[in-house]
């Protein structure tokens, strides 16, 4: 079953045309990678799916609901979560507080004024659970801005997962990480996406072929090919576009 469907997405930024009729489907439970050269429109696609931009043309369906013109927070509440290429955490809040504020949203307590957050057991427990899942127990009370880049990347991932989403979009989760950090974050990703659907944008081909069930190749705002890793590896068009980079 396709839980995310993009139909003919065009995006024109007041003259700067970025996407030309992108169509793709994401099947439930799969790990679907989007690859392509820089400028191909991958991040723009993510921004459109999650509601930051509206497409100039085309439709997006999530769980059989049209989310083309939905607001960012509405899409997030439907169970679609994303991470950011450039780390986007709450810098002065501690790691725990970062996760906690995401959990508050998950339990729909956003407008609650009848309880004290520091005493809300349900939220505290769930936040601790995620903290353990992501392996950051030791950094619980460290302000996010004081952590190393690698740990901030982990927190970035944690925030994406904290809402227990149905569909996760990861935008270059290994950007800026060294080989060892990359390996550990890939292991982490594998662990946490059990039973979820994942769409991942990546440049690191090793990561892509490690994780992906299917790959979509984007080039100059158009879909070049979609298929299994083997199909993509063997595709002449893809090779031409990448000039032998795979």
């Amino acid at each position, binding site marked *: 079953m396709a839980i995310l469907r993009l139909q003919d997405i065009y995006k024109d930024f007041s003259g700067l045309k970025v996407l030309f009729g992108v169509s793709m489907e994401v099947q439930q439970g799969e790990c679907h990678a989007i690859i392509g050269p820089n400028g191909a429109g991958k991040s723009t696609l993510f921004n459109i799916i*999650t509601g930051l931009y509206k497409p100039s043309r085309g439709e997006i369906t999530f769980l059989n609901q049209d989310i083309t013109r939905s*607001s*960012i*927070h509405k899409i*997030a*509440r439907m169970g679609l*979560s*994303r991470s*950011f290429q450039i780390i*986007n*955490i*709450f*810098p*002065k*809040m501690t790691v725990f507080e970062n996760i*906690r*504020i*995401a959990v*508050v*949203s*998950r339990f729909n*307590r*956003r*407008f*609650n*004024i*009848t*309880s*004290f*957050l*520091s005493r*809300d057991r349900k*939220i505290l427990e769930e936040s601790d659970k995620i903290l353990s899942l992501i392996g950051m127990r030791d950094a619980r009370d460290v302000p996010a801005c004081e952590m190393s880049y690698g740990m901030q990347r982990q927190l970035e991932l944690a*925030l994406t997962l*904290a*809402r227990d989403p149905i569909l996760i979009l990861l935008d270059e989760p290994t950007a800026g990480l060294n080989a060892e950090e990359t390996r550990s974050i890939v292991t982490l990703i594998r662990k946490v996406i059990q039973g979820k659907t994942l769409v991942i944008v990546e440049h690191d081909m090793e990561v892509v072929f490690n994780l992906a069930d299917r790959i979509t190749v984007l080039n100059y705002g158009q879909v070049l090919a979609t298929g299994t890793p083997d199909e993509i590896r063997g595709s002449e068009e893809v090779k031409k576009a990448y000039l032998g980079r795979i």
Partner: protein
Amino acid sequence: MNRRRALKIVGGGIASLFLLLLPVLLPEVDVHLATEILIFALFAVSFNLLLGYCGLLPFGHAACFGVGAYATALIFKHITGMPFLITLLISALSGFVGALIIGFFCVRLSGSYFALISLAFQMFLYAVALKWRDVTNGDDGMGVTRPDLYLPGLGTLSLMNIQYLYYVTLVIVALAILACYLFLKTPLGHAAVSMRENVIRASFLGYNVFLTRLAIFSFSGFLAGISGALFVVFEEFVATTVMDVHMSFTVILMATIGGTGHFLGPVLGAVFLMVFQDWISSLTKHWWLFMGIVFVMVVLYAEGGLIGLFKWEKIRALFVSEKES
């Protein structure tokens, strides 16, 4: 219980005792000043809800203060016999509604845009108050008689008596500030603060930034309305000065000098500004220059405000004694 907490509790206890005994300890003219300080402390706290906790700087915060003030004055003028507390509630609600309307337009924006649109609305209300002489008497203003407060068990207190006025103001302000403090501990309070840190991420986590900020803005208006109402009762007079640019600037000064990073910073700022106004204005009429310079210095060199300096000392003192023992 650690040392810091103990210090806080002791400090709070002493302060509370002082506030309660103030009319007994100090001469009447100081009780008068203390009442005014309380009123502005609440006003400054309501302002800091937006600046310190939401990261939004309004240039026109006097709008809701003024709305509360005029609401009270108009009720006193046109409806005799309205109980004081009900009047206060209505004024607070007026401030709330005013903030709801203004906020609906303001909170979509941030930074300079937010500051300016807030100013635009305040200037608009000021112009209305100035020109609508039939209702407000313009810049000539209207006199207001302090009402009596009926409390079951205590009888009728005339607020013309400065001691009674002080205690009533103290209780109301203390409750309002406490409500604000508790509010910041709720999930909604935390949500607003997270938006100051990273508004994009908050959105992507499912938060409706507009509605959240509107809620805080409205609550801030509610509190400002209370302080405006108390101000009118205190001054026994209302004029367009309650919502002019100068009033907006005053609260900006107070909160910033006191320190926007701490909940009680604005209170300290209100105390500082009013005490110094009282002290220096008798020496020179250019005390506003002094305040302005202090303000600029704080912005340049002491971002945490006066209360920021306060904290360092304490921590340093803790360090020193711990080393010795």
